[in-house]
């Protein structure tokens, strides 16, 4: 066998490496190696060595990444250093995709815990589309990229943040409380990298711009933003804005005896082209869940526990999520009992599946209300310090995510193939990932 002609020698920071042009081609044209092999550059002859003034340990890791597609970082290499080096070679995308695999609730592995810095309870955590996240604490939103590097926080000057949402990897929408007499509050669009305010969403009632408190947020694939809004007495309801123009396109006013403007949760149902609006105990004395169709301004489905017998008082609905595939709404009470309401019937009742009364005995000192999330046919429910994963048509418990400290989970979010769980104590959040697929 002759010597392969595409053999390449590198001297990286004094250490010799030998590889092939084929391996380096895996880096793609838009990378250091792609540029290096461009015809314009008079690359040294076969036997000469290309010198690169970089860290050799990281080069070894990245070369292996190009060879195998797997990322194996020895303990002695700090993450930040590796990311820095990958950034030099324009290989960050490669590192990102080798780092963790496609999301699967039953194969999650705790990859990191990030300690919070802000005082006060965490309000919400939201996963970004590319593996980053943001955490809302009081009036501040901390933004992290996928490397879990914190960027400039978004500071709202003592307005309380109610909800946060990602438009794309560079834009975050915040909803905030109005402070009486100040005319501020409402919703704003912020840069995730710099934390700067880019746009402020306005609400008009009868062609007059009004100040308002924005609550829960939801986004549709048709570039719409929905938010529950509270203004003056008759200005409660759900506002709709266009993500591209930023203009208000619609407003669904709350009808007497019902609640929309105080909603805890909005969820856009793409199949039904409807918005789920849920106002829950204890924000109100009763729970109100409704589906709104904005095309003909119609409440197409609704459910409330007004007038339910007091005997089942302990079973107050604490969170709700619509599951379009099974035409039902899943609800959860403070004991993590799941309940289901049929969406095809008007005025149906909750079918509770009492899984465990055992939980009742060991309630923690500082309870957090359970939260629900749905991701690709898997149902997630947080309770105390753990998150349960349910699968299949009967929603069988298949996994439980728990770690030892941080206290109860007050919010969690799934996105960018990661699950982020925010704990109430110490404001620490956990990052759960699915490991890359097995070798064989």
């Amino acid at each position: 066998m002759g010597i392969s002609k595409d053999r390449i020698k590198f001297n990286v920071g004094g250490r010799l490496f030998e590889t092939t042009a084929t391996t380096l081609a895996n880096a793609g044209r838009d990378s250091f190696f792609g540029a290096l092999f461009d015809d314009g550059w008079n690359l040294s002859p076969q036997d000469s060595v290309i010198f690169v003034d970089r860290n050799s340990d990281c080069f070894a890791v990245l070369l292996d990444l190009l060879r195998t597609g797997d990322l194996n970082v020895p303990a002695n290499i700090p993450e930040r250093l590796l990311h820095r080096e990958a950034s030099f070679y324009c290989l960050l995308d490669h590192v990102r995709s080798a780092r963790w695999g496609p999301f699967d609730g039953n194969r999650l592995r705790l990859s990191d815990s990030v300690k919070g810095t802000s005082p006060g309870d965490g309000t919400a955590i939201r996963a970004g589309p590319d593996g980053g996240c943001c955490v809302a604490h009081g009036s501040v939103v901390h933004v992290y990229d996928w490397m879990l590097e914190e960027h400039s926080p978004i500071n709202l000057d003592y307005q309380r943040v109610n909800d946060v949402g990602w438009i794309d990897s560079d834009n975050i929408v915040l909803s905030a409380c109005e402070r009486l007499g100040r005319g501020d509050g409402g919703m704003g669009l912020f840069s995730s990298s710099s934390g700067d305010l880019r746009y402020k969403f306005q609400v008009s009632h009868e062609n007059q711009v009004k100040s308002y408190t924005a609550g829960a947020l939801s986004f549709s694939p048709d570039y719409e933003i929905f938010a529950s809004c509270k203004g003056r007495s008759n200005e409660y309801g759900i506002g709709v804005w266009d993500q591209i123009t930023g203009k208000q396109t619609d407003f669904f006013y709350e009808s007497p005896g019902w609640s929309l403007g105080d909603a805890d949760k909005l969820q856009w149902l793409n199949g039904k082209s409807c918005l789920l609006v849920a106002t829950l105990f204890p924000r109100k004395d009763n729970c109100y869940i409704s589906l709104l169709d904005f095309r003909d301004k119609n409440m197409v489905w609704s459910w409330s526990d007004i007038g339910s017998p007091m005997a089942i008082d302990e079973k107050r609905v604490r969170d709700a999520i619509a599951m379009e595939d099974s035409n039902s709404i899943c609800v959860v009470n403070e004991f993590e009992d799941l309940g289901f309401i049929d969406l095809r019937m008007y005025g149906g009742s909750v079918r509770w599946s009492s899984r465990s009364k055992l939980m009742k005995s060991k309630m923690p000192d500082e309870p957090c209300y359970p939260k629900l999330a749905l991701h690709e046919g898997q149902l997630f429910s947080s309770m105390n310090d753990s998150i349960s994963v349910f699968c299949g048509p009967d929603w069988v418990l298949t996994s439980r995510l728990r770690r030892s400290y941080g206290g109860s989970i007050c919010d969690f979010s799934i996105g960018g193939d990661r699950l982020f769980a925010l704990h109430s104590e110490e404001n620490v959040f956990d990052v759960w990932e699915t490991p890359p697929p097995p070798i064989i």
Partner: protein
Amino acid sequence: MSNQKKRNFQIEAFKHRVVVDPKYADKTWQILERAIHQIYNQDASGLSFEELYRNAYNMVLHKFGEKLYTGFIVTMTAHLKEKSKLIEAAQGGSFLEELNKKWNDHNKALEMIRDILMYMDRTYIESTKKTHVHPMGLSLWRDNVVHFTKIHTRLLNTLLDLVQKERTGEVIDRGLMRSVIKMFMDLGESVYQEDFEKPFLDASSEFYKVESQEFIESCDCGDYLKKAEKRLTEEIDRVAHYLDPKSEEKITSVVEKEMIANHMQRLVHMDNSGLVYMLLHDKYEDLGRMYNLFRRVTNGLLTVRDVMTSHLREMGKQLVTDPEKSKDPVEFVQRLLDERDKYDKVISTAFGNDKTFQNALNSSFEYFINLNARSPEFISLFVDDKLRKGIKGIVDVDVEVILDKVMMLFRYLQEKDVFEKYYKQHLAKRLLSGKTVSDDAERSLIVKLKTECGYQFTSKLEGMFTDMKTSEDTMRGFYGSHPELSEGPTLIVQVLTTGSWPTQPAVPCNLPAEVSVLCEKFRSYYLGTHTGRRLTWQTNMGTADIKAVFGKGQKHELNVSTFQMCVLMLFNNADRLSYKEIEQATEIPASDLKRCLQSLACVKGKNVIKKEPMSKDIGEEDSFYVNEKFTSKFYKVKIGTVVAQKETEPEKQETRQRVEEDRKPQIEAAIVRIMKSRKILDHNNIIAEVTKQLQPRFLANPTEIKKRIESLIERDFLERDSTDRKLYRYLA
């Protein structure tokens, strides 16, 4: 409030300063700048990519991204300004080559510069949302070279000149052309469109405006179309060779507009070469070309179609209203068929079987065929001619073809019931005289009529065929029951159902004794087998074969009509008879008798009797005797009746009247049908609906419909609304 000004506090943001050599950035940038120069001077062999990349990286890392970015733009701009001077200096033909060479150099340099600045491209530019290196390099080229005042118009003019040269037949360097135009496309669609495509289209428009004017003055229509077609393919070819494929539609529309749309009317109406000329002289190729070119422009085909239609109508009108042509119905119909065949061929070979043209053809024929009120009669006569004798020796398939064509004409007729009347008469004559050539052909046409107009239309015609068939059986039965009749004269009777056949008033006549005996026997036989029927003898429709021996012993068999037989039989007992005597003996009506005698005495070669005095016409005082000297080379002699093949004027009137008479019940039936379902309807609507219902048979006359409505009101089928006199109400 105190007037003391509020003090403004300003808090300086705390900044992390990277402590580096203050000249670090300048030094590093100088290295990179020098490299960029070297790259542009094609002297990059000594450069170390790794070093340059690292330097650019470090600048971004140490927050000098902005300096690097602006530095790159400034340096590249300076280089491009220099290059544009060099390009500008190039003389004549080398100008384009120089530009193309420099463009290729720039692309290569840009690629390498991007390689060096890749880190900046991926991080600094990404986060600050500035223009990326590659598109920035292209827009710098656009602004500093392509849009450079001394290059901009010169480049455009050079390109347009080359196109112009190619149009006038010179050979140009298409490869160079392609790369330069590719440059415009690489610089972005808007650059290509604004800086090249738009001026190119304007220049082309101007060129073709002049050229088409030249052509139209000097060429005939056919040649012009050939040239236009050639230009069109040339332009399409040009786009394929060196323009953006998206330009094809635009440049062809320019050619179409200048060469075709603007001269459309003139081309079509060109004397001695326009559309009419092409149609008259069967220029299928030119017609096809015209169709294909005109199809490309709005209203193009409409223009062609309109001219064709008006020509067709004019031509057809002349054809059907020309009294000369009407003299021979067969020729008349044949001419119509020929025209149709011709236009069918034009549409199928030249006009791509275009449905709209077929419709135009049909509507034109419908228009002019109905201009001549005798068209139905002529068509029936044509069929008569074909089925009577013409088809002898023609294969079945051909018969079908001819009949199909006739059906085509039939479809155009508005007065289909008139056709039916004539057809019935002609068919009756054919059947009774036994002159039908092919039973199959007859039936085939009936089937066609049936599919076209429905069962009702042909039921009587079919009845006629049935009568013929049953008559044969009856005759067999008659002779079977009378075996003694095998001797003596043979009588063949065709029993015709009243109503199925065109009725003519039965003309009484005295039959010779031998025949009337036989007739009586048949009558009693027939009435014996069929009770409750009545037989009337239609002597005016019969024929007879009689054997005659002339003076010198010449024997002949004479084929004559019943009337002629009656006359001839008289001469068995007399040598000479006067007109009065014959009239008395036979009781044949005067007009028929005169015609009958005329055919016996006045037709040369067939004059079995002689007349005194010798003259063409029959007078009341004439006398007749047997022509003993009669000779003929045939044993069988057919004595024709002097009948006009076409109808005589009074006959025509009569047929017309009968048709009108027959229409009355049909119109009434239609009115009643409509009113029965609608119950109440106003006058205009009822007229419209009746006309529509009767369309397949004839075009109903509104005044006639009105009369029928009046009649129905009189008979209490309908009544006028008491408040609105225009409304009719159905009375159950």
